[in-house]
């Protein structure tokens, strides 16, 4: 029910939203939970395992019970905490894990079976037969036990990620955080202040608390306005979810969850990576529940939540609210409720020094199937009696919200006086903890420690500031005792829940200890305590207190489980925002890309590049197009865009020496105006990459790398020049993007090239493996007479801005001669016919010896990989590159393995494998490149090819890798 005069809601802005089949009325400023409580709805969910009826336990992000699903269809968001989700007009919300309805859930029968469903039940019961786990048990269990479900459709929500930098990140906008931000901002520091809530102020928005003589929330609002005016970046609805190395923090901003009609460009969430020179953690504290019999009914909630619903939302969660407390806070709840005119039938406090007016004793039972109707108490004087009430406010003391201090591996420390874990000093470099997060529970302590933390942060970044005055506030922290485990009366069947979300009871934890899961980490995994969306925020300390008791150790020796990021759930879609579909990876496109697509070429990903597969004509399939294009190159002329090959410009007096050092063969001996094939090794003697390098001037080379290894080679050259050969005076830069380059190949290639190049192109001016500057349609360009097809061929390069034009022009000229474009498939066929290697062959475990190029390793100089390439193991009994030709007309398949005829096709008999197969139109056969044990001496032998993956086999003949034009006359002539 609403309490007149209370709450920070806007009573002039009513709204309606749907929960299951009901329309719920609320006001701007409500959460789904506060609006439901206001209309008397306590039941908001069903528990994970036993399907117990549950209502909200908290009024914040630690909520284990009140999980709902919002939105419909593909936009559905499961496991939303009703205690955090703002109530917005028209919002569709649904309960979870209940069928047919929240009030009548057939799987409530699980609760009757609870005696059999304790810790380890799944592990012990669903053991045999082993196969049944995957097919039967797991699907059944998943259906019965569960949280909300995703829609299964692609996520249509717009998400965002962003980066931010600051001098000081303040985590939490309560009194400590506000004070820290103010202190730092006044010193001129660049401050980000992030808080989970819509309204900053922390407990000040939820308590009857005065600061500087004004209501706490008013002081907070004024301070926030002042901070904004000073340039502080105030980020409400933003949870700092993780602390990472080097002052990096992750934060989830809920950008539009609170808007009824958000702008379509607005993302739902934004995941921030914040690089902060310094951090003040002022995340407050989370209240503890008390383990007492049947403590999970709707209507039983934390005292801090009861006060929050009253002060923040003007809602009394019941008409008669009893109180069970082991902390002074329970009495504060009583006073607050009574001041608001709400009946408090009893305050039960088991402590010996319980204040006057309280009943010294414990709550030992409750009843009410779908909501609390009464509690049973056991006063310390003896006897038991029932008290009628529809809500029970439970206060078990506070746990500092110290999770972020543990994200880099530190463990918290048990403080005997405070009876709670506090953060370890220096747990996260650059982070200072202030306020309740540091175990300083009064407002005055929070304000002062916030100021001190800011000063420490300012000192770290070298700023000085005379501290600002502290506002006056309450200086009495609540006293609390260690977690209590209330046993029920003898002979009664009862359960005391610790972890509400995972239905873990005191008995489960004791049983885990009994079965020797005595370490807190083992107990967690055995019982599932502390798992799922709330990560045990309201249960961890209570559970380990029970474990400590059961194992006879103290709480400090028992310790906590590891707190890992994220602090609260972060949608993967926010972390990876933008990285779906085309956003998954950057796309690199050549200058001819639009023209190639316009011709219907299917584009194939090659690293980040897109290259054409083939250029279909009519209703050709890929193979018909590929064969036609390959034949076209062998008979007339073909044009292909080869701009994706890596191009590295190398200049300086040391250029020749550098190339001699990084290539197996010599380049200092290469004449100006000439091109040479180069083989590059890794230092371990295996092949890194290959390509051609042209000498354009005495101190000027242009290296070509494969498309795939361009980045690796560039990094390697930088390493060699900076680290291994700093003596060489040489500069290098990647020019891959700066030059558009086209291959023109075939018997009529020269004719095509000559028609567009001003200079004469003859065997004298441009013999095989020559290069030089030319004028291409009036533009300075470069011409290389090199061939990857075995045909008479050229590559023409022009600055990229002319690429699209040159592509069109070259194609028109080639087509006039009966030629045309060719794609990657034809390019591959042409090079397999010629035995030219790609990274299908040089996979990283292949040596120069294996591909028959060990003689290229120059004897006259040192080079990278030379020493290691001489290792005997790399020179004896190797799988050597061979050509393969299918006998009998069946295709050869990539990845198939080779065996001697008559051998069993199994691993011990393995003789080699196929790397690059194709149908060769020039040879009229299925051919391939592959590797075979000692293969160079086995030409002519017939072996068996077996492809186990495709269930295919055929006989193949071992031949020389160069199957077409072995003498190479076509390229030279």
């Amino acid at each position, binding site marked *: 029910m609403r309490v007149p005069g209370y709450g920070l809601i806007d009573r002039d802005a009513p709204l309606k939203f749907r929960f299951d089949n009901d329309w719920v009325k609320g006001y701007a400023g409500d959460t789904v939970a506060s609006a439901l409580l206001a209309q008397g709805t306590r039941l908001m969910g069903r528990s994970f395992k036993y399907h117990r009826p549950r209502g909200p336990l908290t009024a914040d992000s630690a909520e284990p019970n009140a999980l709902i699903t919002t939105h419909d269809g593909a936009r559905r968001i499961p496991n939303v905490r009703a205690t955090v989700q703002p109530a917005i007009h028209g919002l569709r919300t649904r309960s979870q894990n209940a069928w047919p309805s929240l009030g009548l859930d057939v799987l409530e029968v699980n609760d009757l079976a609870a005696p059999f469903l304790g810790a380890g039940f799944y592990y012990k019961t669903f053991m045999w037969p082993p196969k049944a786990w995957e097919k039967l048990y797991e699907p059944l269990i998943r259906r019965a036990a569960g949280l909300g479900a995703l829609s299964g459709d692609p996520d249509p929500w717009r998400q965002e990620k962003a980066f931010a930098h600051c001098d000081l990140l303040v985590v939490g906008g309560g009194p400590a955080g506000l004070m820290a931000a103010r202190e730092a901002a006044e010193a001129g520091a660049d401050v980000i202040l992030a808080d989970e809530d819509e309204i900053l102020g922390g407990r000040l928005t939820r308590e009857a608390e005065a600061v500087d003589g004004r209501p706490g929330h008013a002081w907070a609002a004024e301070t926030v306005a002042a901070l904004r005016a000073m340039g502080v970046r105030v980020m409400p609805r933003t949870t700092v979810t993780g602390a*990472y190395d080097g002052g990096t923090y992750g934060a989830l901003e809920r950008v539009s969850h609170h808007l009824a009609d958000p702008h379509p460009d607005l993302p739902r969430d934004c995941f921030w990576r914040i690089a902060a020179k310094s951090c003040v953690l002022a995340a407050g504290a989370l209240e503890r529940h008390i383990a007492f019999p049947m403590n999970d009914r709707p209507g039983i909630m934390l005292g801090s939540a009861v006060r929050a619903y009253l002060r923040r939302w003007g809602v009394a969660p019941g008409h008669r609210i009893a109180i069970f407390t082991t902390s002074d806070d329970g009495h504060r709840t009583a006073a607050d409720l009574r001041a608001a005119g709400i009946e408090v039938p009893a305050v039960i406090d088991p402590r010996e020094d319980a204040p006057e007016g309280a009943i010294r004793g414990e709550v030992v039972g409750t009843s009410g199937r779908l909501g609390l109707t009464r509690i049973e108490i056991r006063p310390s004087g003896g006897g038991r009696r029932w008290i009628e009430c529809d809500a029970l406010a439970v206060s078990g003391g506070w746990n500092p919200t110290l999770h972020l201090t543990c994200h880099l591996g530190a463990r918290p420390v048990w403080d005997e006086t405070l009876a709670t874990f506090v953060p370890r000093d220096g747990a996260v470099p650059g982070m200072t903890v202030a306020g309740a997060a540091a175990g300083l529970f009064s407002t005055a302590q929070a304000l002062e420690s916030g100021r001190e933390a800011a000063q420490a942060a300012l000192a770290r970044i070298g700023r000085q500031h005379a501290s600002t005055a502290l506002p006056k506030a309450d200086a009495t922290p609540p006293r609390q005792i260690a977690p209590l485990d209330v046993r029920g009366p003898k002979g009664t069947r009862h359960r005391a829940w610790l972890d509400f979300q995972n239905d873990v009871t005191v008995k489960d934890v004791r049983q885990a200890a009994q079965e020797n899961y005595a370490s807190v980490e083992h107990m967690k995994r055995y019982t599932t305590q502390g798992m799922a969306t709330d990560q045990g925020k309201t249960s961890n300390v209570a559970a380990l207190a029970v474990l400590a008791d059961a194992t006879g150790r103290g709480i400090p020796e028992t310790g906590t489980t590891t707190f890992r990021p994220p602090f609260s759930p972060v949608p993967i879609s926010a972390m990876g925002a933008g990285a779906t579909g085309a956003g998954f990876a950057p796309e690199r496109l050549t200058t001819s890309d639009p023209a190639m697509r316009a011709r219907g070429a299917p584009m194939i990903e090659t690293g980040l590049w897109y290259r054409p597969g083939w250029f279909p004509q009519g209703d050709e399939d890929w193979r018909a197009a590929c064969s036609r294009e390959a034949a076209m190159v062998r008979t007339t002329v073909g044009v292909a865009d080869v701009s994706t090959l890596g191009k590295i410009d190398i200049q300086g007096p040391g250029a020749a020496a550098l190339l001699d050092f990084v290539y197996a063969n010599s380049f200092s001996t290469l004449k100006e105006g000439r091109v040479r094939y180069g083989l590059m090794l890794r230092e371990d003697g295996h092949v890194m990459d290959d390509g051609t390098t042209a000498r354009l001037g005495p101190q000027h080379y242009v290296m070509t790398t494969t498309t795939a290894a361009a980045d690796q080679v560039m990094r390697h050259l*930088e*390493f060699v020049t900076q680290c291994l050969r700093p003596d060489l005076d040489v500069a290098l830069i990647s020019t891959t993007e700066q030059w558009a380059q086209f291959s023109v190949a075939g018997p009529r290639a020269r004719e095509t090239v000559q028609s567009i190049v001003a200079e004469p192109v003859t065997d004298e001016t441009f013999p095989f493996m020559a290069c030089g500057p030319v004028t291409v349609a009036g533009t300075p360009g470069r011409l290389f007479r090199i061939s990857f097809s075995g045909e008479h061929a050229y590559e023409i390069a022009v600055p990229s801005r002319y690429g699209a034009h040159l592509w069109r022009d070259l194609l028109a000229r080639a087509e006039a001669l009966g030629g045309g474009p060719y794609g990657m498939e034809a390019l591959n066929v042409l090079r397999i016919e010629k035995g030219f290697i790609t990274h299908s062959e040089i996979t990283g475990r292949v040596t120069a010896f294996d591909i028959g190029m060990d003689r290229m390793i120059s004897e006259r100089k040192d080079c990278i990989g030379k020493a290691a390439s001489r290792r005997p193991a790399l020179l004896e009994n190797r799988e050597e590159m061979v050509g393969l030709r299918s006998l009998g007309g069946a295709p050869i398949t990539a990845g198939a393995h080779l065996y001697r005829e008559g051998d069993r096709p199994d691993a011990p008999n393995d003789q080699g494998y196929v790397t690059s197969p194709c149908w060769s139109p020039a040879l009229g056969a299925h051919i391939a490149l592959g590797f075979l044990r000692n293969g160079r001496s086995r030409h002519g032998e017939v072996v068996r090819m077996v492809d186990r993956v495709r269930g295919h086999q055929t006989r193949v003949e071992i031949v020389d890798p160069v199957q077409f034009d072995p003498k190479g006359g076509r390229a030279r002539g």
Partner: protein
Amino acid sequence: MRLTCPLCGDRDRREFYYLGHETWLDRPAADAPPEAWDAYLHLRDNPCGPTRDLWQHEAGCGAWLVVSRDTATHEIASVELAR
């Protein structure tokens, strides 16, 4: 994780490429015995504590760097140009 490139300043870890221990800087002579090459290519310690690694500011200035860091605490003591 962040690294302070001596040329570019404080930058996010995503801009850097990691190679391995600084051993890679001490390339044996061409005629060094096989044991020296074996050690250079393969033998690395796996320290719990201080180590010196080679990183490249690949998405920045391209400089190769020696980063002194602690594998246990993740503390970065220094970032220097490799040569």
